[in-house]
């Protein structure tokens, strides 16, 4: 402790850290894929659904956006079992992250859909294409292309926020850090290294997703 930093403890536990990083990324991937899909459905519901479905989705979005993620996590992991629903910590973490991402994703996708010129929808409809098909093949690809950077940002934010799931003993990267520092008493060094790892993961994730986006949406706009 004190001023002589000792980073050997971390190198000894590299495996643990990498495992933790892997789980962090896996959770982010699950939340991202399911979350974006649900966001599209949620946005469509707000725009064109029945009054009650619309209100339900809007309420859900407001509740999630105005409460802390950690409270949502605790509610799912600790609260649901008292209703008889018992789920493992990892599942609760994935569920909480997905529910959280979706609420923000819905607003993002909705803005994207709104930005597509109405003429696109009209052209599709005037060709006799059903409204659902017009949405899926004409409007949605353009909407996603427009808000893709915002979606990428939200995914990265979710990945960083997931550090909190260590609090329910999910073996993510932060939890690995907690274990290492409690054994080695090198709290600052451990958390420092882990912070750098998160930064690296955030930058890489953003770069990779943006690159994939360029491939998908290249030159077509």
């Amino acid at each position: 402790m004190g001023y002589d930093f000792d980073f050997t403890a971390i190198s000894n536990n590299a495996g643990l850290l990498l495992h933790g990083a892997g789980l962090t990324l896996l959770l982010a991937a699950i939340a991202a894929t399911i979350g974006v899909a649900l966001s599209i459905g949620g946005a469509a519901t707000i725009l064109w659904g029945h009054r009650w479905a619309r209100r339900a989705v809007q309420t859900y979005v407001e509740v999630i956006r105005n409460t802390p993620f950690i409270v949502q996590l605790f509610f799912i992991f600790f609260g649901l079992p008292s209703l008889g629903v018992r789920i493992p910590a990892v599942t609760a973490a994935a569920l909480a992250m997905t529910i959280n991402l979706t609420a923000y994703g819905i607003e993002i996708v909705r803005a994207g859909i709104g930005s597509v010129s109405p003429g696109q929808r009209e052209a599709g409809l005037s060709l006799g294409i059903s409204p659902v098909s017009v949405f899926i093949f004409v409007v949605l690809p353009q909407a996603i292309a427009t808000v893709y950077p915002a979606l990428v940002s939200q995914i990265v934010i979710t990945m960083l926020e997931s550090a909190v799931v260590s609090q329910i003993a999910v073996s993510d990267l932060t939890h690995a850090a907690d274990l290492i520092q409690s054994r080695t008493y090198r709290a600052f060094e451990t958390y420092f290294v882990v912070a750098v790892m998160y930064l690296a993961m955030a930058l890489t994730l953003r770069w990779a997703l943006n690159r994939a986006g360029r491939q998908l949406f290249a030159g077509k706009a």
Partner: protein
Amino acid sequence: MPLPPDAATPMIEMRHVNKWYGDFQVLKDISLSVSKGERVVICGPSGSGKSTAIRCINRLEQHQQGQIFVEGVELTDKVKNIEHVRREVGMVFQQFNLVPHLTILDNLTLAPRRVRKQSRKEAEARAMQYLERVKIAEQAHKYPSQLSGGQQQRVAIARSLCMEPHILLFDEPTSALDPEMIKEVLDVMVSLAEDHMTMICVTHEMGFARTVADKIVFMDHGQIIEMAPPQEFFTAPRNPRTQLFLSQVLSH
């Protein structure tokens, strides 16, 4: 129940159609009938309701009073009727509205494959035919952003044709084009007209109207002011508002 079409039944019939946006009445007692093979041009100053009128025909806008019949089928809220009408009525827009993330060929085959359930081969063969027709076959694998405005509009016309509609609606098809590209689009429209495609065309291009139209409809402030064949319309307009409009439009 759709009436069986016969020579006497008009392709399009609008009877006393009225439409409001809130308190503002945009269509006032519009009655218009278009027969098979007839070419109608609608002209008038901006805000006269001409685009709104034709957009009611394929239900992109809804009328509140009156009746609209397309090939004997009445346009109501019934989804089946609307879908039937949209299959048989094509529309070409001022802003072209090609789908940017699809190639030209995919733009053309999208509706035939999704709506008429054609196979990819069948749809593409027909699409290439129509692309030849509008003289743009070599661009089939490009994206809309790589084409000029005039080319995009010709593609848009070909796209409508791929659904083999009985009626084509044109909503100011050349208004968004640079002047040097207007002719290539008008040429395509003239050739369609010469093949007796039933069409209603909202346009400012009076030369086109004079050459090709069977009747010209002048609208102002949501009403039909005058309706006549071209010779009569241009040489002896009856209503003073028509005369005023013509004097403004024909001065250049």
